[in-house]
């Protein structure tokens, strides 16, 4: 897969639901279709909510990495509006 850009990134550790998704969504809205966004979220509730919301709104999670503190780095590919 050709990764067009990974300049977009946000660390949302410590940000609670649903603000973590709201912040993610605001960045995605400014991006072009197919661009990538890296989001770091806490384990637990954010893990159940953020990926689900991204999926429901037509974006694609292309990569999931677990970090040392058990938080999670998602790479989200901007979907079509």
């Amino acid at each position, binding site marked *: 897969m050709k990764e067009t850009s990974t300049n977009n990134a946000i660390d949302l550790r410590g940000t609670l639901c649903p603000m973590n998704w709201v912040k993610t969504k605001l960045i995605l809205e400014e991006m072009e279709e197919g661009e990538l966004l890296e989001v770091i979220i806490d*384990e637990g509730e954010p*893990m*159940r909510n953020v*990926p*689900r919301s*991204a*999926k*429901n709104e037509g974006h*694609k*999670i*292309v*990569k*999931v990495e*677990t970090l040392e503190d058990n938080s*999670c780095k998602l790479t989200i590919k901007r979907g079509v509006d």
Partner: protein
Amino acid sequence: MVTGNEYNAPSEATKVALQKEAAKLKLDFNELKSGGFIKQVQKNLFVVRLRCPGGSLTPEKLRKAAEIAEKYGTGEVHLSIRQSLEIIGVHHNNFSSVVKELKEVGWSVASCGPRIRVPNACGGCTWNPNGLMDTIKLCNEIDRNYFGVPTGHHKFKINISGCAIDCPDSRDADLGFQGILEPVLVPDLCNACTLCVKACEEQALVMEGDLPVRDDSKCIYCGDCVKVCPMDAMVRGKSGWLVRVGGKHGKHPIYGYEVAKFISDEQALSLVPKTLEWYRGIAVGRERIGTTLNKHGLQKYIEEVVKPLSLEAIETNEERKKYFSEGNIYK
């Protein structure tokens, strides 16, 4: 000094006053209550409880309620604990006018007393993203078919939840329904991202090699893994209702017992009258079905109600355990 007797005096006096008032007006207060008119502390005034299955209302009904509250009540409305709108301070002379005006918008008062109450429900899958089943559809069907049916013993409450979060408290109802789904993995689509494993609060999923494997003895069928899967590799297998029976609030609360799973809307609609028939026949006096179950044992209900309807029964406390977290009464 206030003694115990003096402290109790006002409530006793109120009771006597109410009895006198009932006799004077030649009204049967219990009869009135069963129709959704509930006696207030204030002389001659009643709370009129309106029938709002699942708490759903239209703008037309809301306008009518406001109109009636201003015309016949004190102008106040109150949201009952079970999602119904109540008009406060209606004089008993105005009952027939209220009933007539409600009828204009196809509305009626709710039930009270020893009968099937207006069912409770959340938004279910209709607008709530957590919902797995159509709670509103089942709620309206139950209300349409069984609202107000006398039980012969005590009140009978039905609560319907769309998912395992269980906001409508299906555990606290005489009969509770909760939406569930069985996740099924399509291995070819899985990219081993592990999000499903991370999302599962029950630790029912573990990665074995490159694939998540589900332990059914832990899975509560909440559907979180299906919702989170970015590849649509974890998909909805069978879905339906988890059934709980015998829950109640009150001075001596009981958590409902899980008795069947993955039942359809049609099966749920047969379970209501079958359960009622069983309760009517076996309960003694004014007891809730939870008390009846505790006396006779849950297995009797399963043998006599769940199995004859060919439902997928939950028969052991071992299996029931997984639907609880802390405070599990089966521990």
